[in-house]
């Protein structure tokens, strides 16, 4: 139920953003898929796509493994928000170049590092509180996309 509701809201977001013709043309529907090629439908994602293919994570994590929360609700909520943002930005061409990750998406990515590497990093995170988290990407900046 929630899932299909969320899918709907993504669609609305994207459709309002683009108009249905462009939505189809830009393969906006693929936004709901996990295939990295779906992200790369937008050529503005090329840099990340090609460098992801060369990155240490190419065979272990796709875009959505890092960029969407690992819960169904979270996943589609984030997708809806991002779907709207990206479509709007893409169409209006009004965004910071080079593209910069925003705070929410950075937190999502960090949570995903911890999710997969929980065991490995347990010893360095067990004494963390919400206020004293270390930032994985302060050292491992290039794991998802080599810079």
């Amino acid at each position, binding site marked *: 139920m929630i899932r299909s509701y969320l899918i709907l809201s993504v669609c609305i977001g994207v459709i309002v953003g683009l108009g249905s013709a462009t939505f189809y043309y830009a393969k906006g529907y693929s936004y709901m898929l996990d295939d990295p090629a779906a992200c790369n439908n937008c050529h503005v994602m090329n840099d990340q796509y090609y460098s992801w293919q060369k990155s240490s994570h190419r065979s272990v994590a796709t875009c959505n493994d890092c960029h969407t929360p690992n819960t169904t609700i979270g996943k589609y909520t984030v997708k809806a928000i991002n779907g709207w943002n990206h479509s709007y930005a893409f169409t209006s061409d009004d965004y910071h170049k*080079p593209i910069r990750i925003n705070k929410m998406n950075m937190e999502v990515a960090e949570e995903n590092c911890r999710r997969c590497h929980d065991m490995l990093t347990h010893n360095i995170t067990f004494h963390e509180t919400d206020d004293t988290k270390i930032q994985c990407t302060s050292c491992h*900046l290039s794991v998802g996309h080599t810079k």
Partner: protein
Amino acid sequence: NIFEKKQEATLYPSVFKPVGDEEVDPKVWGENFPFEYDTYKKTETNEGQTFYGGSDNYQKLDKYPNLKILFSGNPFSKDYREERGHYWAITDVKETERINDKTPNTCITCKSSSVAVDIKKMGPENFYKAMFKDVGAHYDKSIGCLDCHDPKTMALRISRPAFIEAMERRGIDVTKASRQEMRSYVCGQCHVEYYFKGDGKYLTFPWDKGLQIDSIEAYYDEVNFNDWTHETTGSPMLKMQHPEFETWSTGIHAKSGVSCADCHMPYVKNGSVKVTDHWIRSPLKNVNNACQTCHKWSEQEMVNRVKTIQDRTYETMYRTELAIIDAINAIKAAKDAGATDEQLKEARKLHRRAQLRWDFVAAENSMGFHSPQETLKTLSNAIDYARQSQLAAERLMKNVAVK
């Protein structure tokens, strides 16, 4: 518009109207490459000053009055302006009060695409030893496509023999250069320290012993070259000129393979295609494209980082000027008190050593950014020599007084 974006990706850049090997008019090239041409034309824009650079040909002698004392007797004490975009090169060289009827044609070498043509036709010797008023003064094209590109392949190409010769003497064959190296070498044709060798005024880069200031000084000392005699002190001086290439080469960016073009001609997206921004200018006017592809910090933070480096350089450079001026005054006092040339030799030599180092920093156009630590090392040596010069001169005063 998405449809357009998709289209461009496949269409660009297949149109190609042949361009002649002597085509000095960028407009003709521009029919093939409208984006490059359009951005190239923007070098006409005088965007105004940055902290220490930017595009505005204000008179440096007014802003920094120390320069008049330091350059006394040199044409630079008459007219010395902040440089601006390539569009202006031909205008500015003609208008500067540093030239006169006796100016050799060598002075045009870095100012116009026509040079690439005439230097081949006339041969470098004849080209250089002609008179500026007879040859260069009649050019009307500024720096353009032909200076950096092969018109057939559009590959980068060195058009100025001085760079090729200088690299050869260092054992480097520029025809073997990688593409990334060429992205700095084309700039190294002009953004370098140079001198006019011998009576033929042959354009020469003093790099035989290396690109660092100590090696450059050693080279000049060996060939016994002086640019001018300092009017106030009588010291045999060297004038340094825009050693951007040399300074960059000792910095961390060069070591990391970052070229001049990476920062001054960053790629930009034109539709979905990456093209080279030919609006060559201060990266501070263009931080997102120039720096943020490699550095994840915010624009403001990048600007702050540059400013921190430049402020440290400027403060120390200014301190160096005061030290050199103290030396100049001390030498003058000794000279006025009757010290002989023989007695003044040491103080003058040290004055020369100090000032050529200061000038290596002052004439460089990034205010230390291209190599922050090496630049400060150069200045600390300059301060040491300047104060030693002052000491030597003051000691003479004692002798003179006692004598």
